[in-house]
């Protein structure tokens, strides 16, 4: 594609203002880079980064991009773990960072936020109204509300305890790929029955439109109780989770675990004494203080089914914060001496143990790297197993990084197929199109392609993400 950069710059400047168009290569490289472990290729580096401030500018930008047939890649904070954030073709990056307005309407029972706000900023604003933001990614410091809703990621949240982010979305303002600005949903706290186009955009990964305003229900801040449980082995935690669902016990809002290896790394990282085996940590919520205390006591009793070495309610928040941060730090410290290649496996809950054992075998028998170490942690109560292959070096080629990523992805996704899951956090396109085809068949994939075409006839938005790029 021949693009006259000088003309493009001038045209884009007319749309968003010349101060908000960047065509220098350092800026392009910084925006194109994402968490994927291999370096950028020339095709990933955009012609320009534009930073609109409202839906009208985005509308004009998309109309222009359609007219010129130039792809536009939406950028929130670029924290996707499966390559959603890296442009797949030359084009324009649309950065939402200048769209950070938020307005809380307690009398209407909702808030409205622009897409570029980081979750931690939304949380801070909602805290003034004693409200909770039901979005829980580990990257909340920097992940945007637009990206989180566009992926509909549960992250730390156990779906069965509270639901997914999209369950709280009342409506959107969306700019369609062809430039029309539309409103969806309701201003009531009562959501639409029947066909509600709001749902088309929840989890659409930016393929169908640009979310420019997100309206979400206000959730009164619940009371929380914290539990930590120490086990001899990970299997005991898995047995407990399976039993929790089997017995119909109400799940905690967060139910995390660290396997034996991850627990040692995480606890050492935060200065805690090394645990004997695996560790589970739970956060329980209720709408009254007494309710939360009762629920925590009940859950503590239930936990005995898994024979923990010790299980206790943690009242001291400093102590809890230290324990809780071991979960995040395990991942960070693991990276110290090498690299990790991850996966998300969300099996049918009665198959959780089998899936976990299969995941161990996959890492043990990797073809692209011998003797990788299996490490696991994650949102076990959801249930999600993040199975990681750890290799003790960073000094490997881009090709090997890709090969390892692909092999882990493909093999663990086979487990999702075998055990009836599909993930729940990382989104289903970009690297995962082959999974979509394998699990649901070509007919469903073709349906998605036709849906994309109905919204975006020139394949302008996030081109490549539905083509199965890696």
């Amino acid at each position: 594609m021949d693009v006259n950069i000088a003309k493009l710059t001038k045209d884009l400047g007319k749309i968003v203002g010349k101060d908000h168009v960047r065509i220098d290569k350092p800026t392009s490289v910084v925006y194109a880079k994402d968490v994927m472990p291999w370096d950028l290729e020339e095709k990933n580096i955009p012609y320009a980064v534009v930073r609109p401030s409202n839906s009208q500018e985005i509308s004009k930008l998309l109309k222009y991009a359609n007219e010129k047939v130039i792809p536009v890649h939406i950028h929130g904070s670029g924290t996707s773990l499966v390559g959603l954030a890296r442009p797949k073709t030359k084009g324009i990056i649309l950065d939402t960072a200048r769209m950070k307005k938020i307005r809380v309407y307690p009398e209407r029972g909702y808030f409205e936020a622009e897409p570029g706000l980081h979750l931690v900023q939304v949380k801070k604003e909602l805290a003034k109204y004693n409200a909770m933001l039901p979005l829980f990614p580990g990257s909340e410091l920097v992940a945007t509300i637009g990206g989180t809703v566009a992926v509909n990621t549960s992250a730390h949240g156990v779906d069965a305890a509270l639901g997914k982010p999209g369950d709280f979305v009342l409506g959107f303002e969306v700019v369609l790929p062809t430039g029309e600005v539309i409103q969806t949903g309701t201003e009531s706290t009562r959501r639409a029955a029947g066909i509600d186009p709001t749902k088309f955009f929840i989890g659409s990964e930016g393929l169908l439109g640009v979310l420019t305003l997100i309206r979400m229900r206000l959730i009164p801040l619940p009371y929380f109780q914290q539990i930590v449980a120490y086990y001899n082995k990970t299997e005991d935690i898995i047995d407990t989770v399976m039993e929790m669902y089997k017995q119909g016990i109400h799940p905690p809002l967060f139910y995390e675990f660290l396997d034996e290896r991850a627990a040692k790394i995480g606890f050492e990282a935060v200065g805690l004494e090394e645990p004997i085996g695996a560790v589970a940590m739970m956060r329980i919520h209720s709408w009254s203080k007494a309710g939360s205390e009762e629920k925590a006591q009940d859950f503590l009793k239930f936990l005995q089914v898994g024979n923990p070495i010790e299980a206790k309610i943690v009242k001291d928040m400093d102590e809890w914060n230290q324990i809780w941060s071991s979960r995040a730090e395990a991942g960070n410290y693991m990276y110290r001496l090498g690299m990790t290649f991850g996966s998300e496996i969300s099996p049918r809950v009665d198959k959780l143990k089998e899936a976990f054992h299969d995941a161990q075998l996959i890492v043990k028998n990797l073809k692209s790297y011998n003797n990788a170490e299996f490490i696991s942690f994650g949102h076990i109560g959801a249930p999600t197993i993040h199975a990681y292959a750890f290799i003790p070096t960073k000094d490997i080629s881009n090709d090997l990084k890709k090969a390892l990523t692909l092999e882990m992805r493909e093999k663990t996704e086979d487990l999702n197929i075998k055990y009836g899951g599909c993930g729940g956090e990382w989104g289903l396109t970009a690297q995962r199109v082959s999974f979509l085809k394998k699990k649901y068949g070509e007919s469903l994939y073709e349906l998605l392609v036709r849906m994309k075409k109905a919204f975006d006839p020139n394949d302008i938005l996030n081109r490549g993400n539905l083509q199965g790029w890696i």
Partner: protein
Amino acid sequence: MDIKESQALRSTLLQEIGKCRACRFCIDVCPSYQAAEWVENMSPYGRLQILKYLINGTLDEDDPLIYSLYSCLQCGRCDRLCKAKGQNLEVSKLIRLGKYLLSQGLVKGKKSEKV
């Protein structure tokens, strides 16, 4: 700085920056990122990437690049937020070393290094 020292510094920088996982946890605390209305190449993450791609030859020295690197205030807030802190990644120090290399015209082992 002689040739050996500058090569060693470049190699150290590449190795250390290789620890950056591009998670961008460091960006929001950076005062220059805030002042620039949240442009990522004015953040610690952006500067590390720019240094990496400059040393490996993907980027050339140009005004936007120099402006990004030299606008770092060396306040060190990013060091506290860095998710790779288990690896002792000293973000602000790496940016300082990168600036030093740049100021000596030594990034790509040319000019004064040959003197």
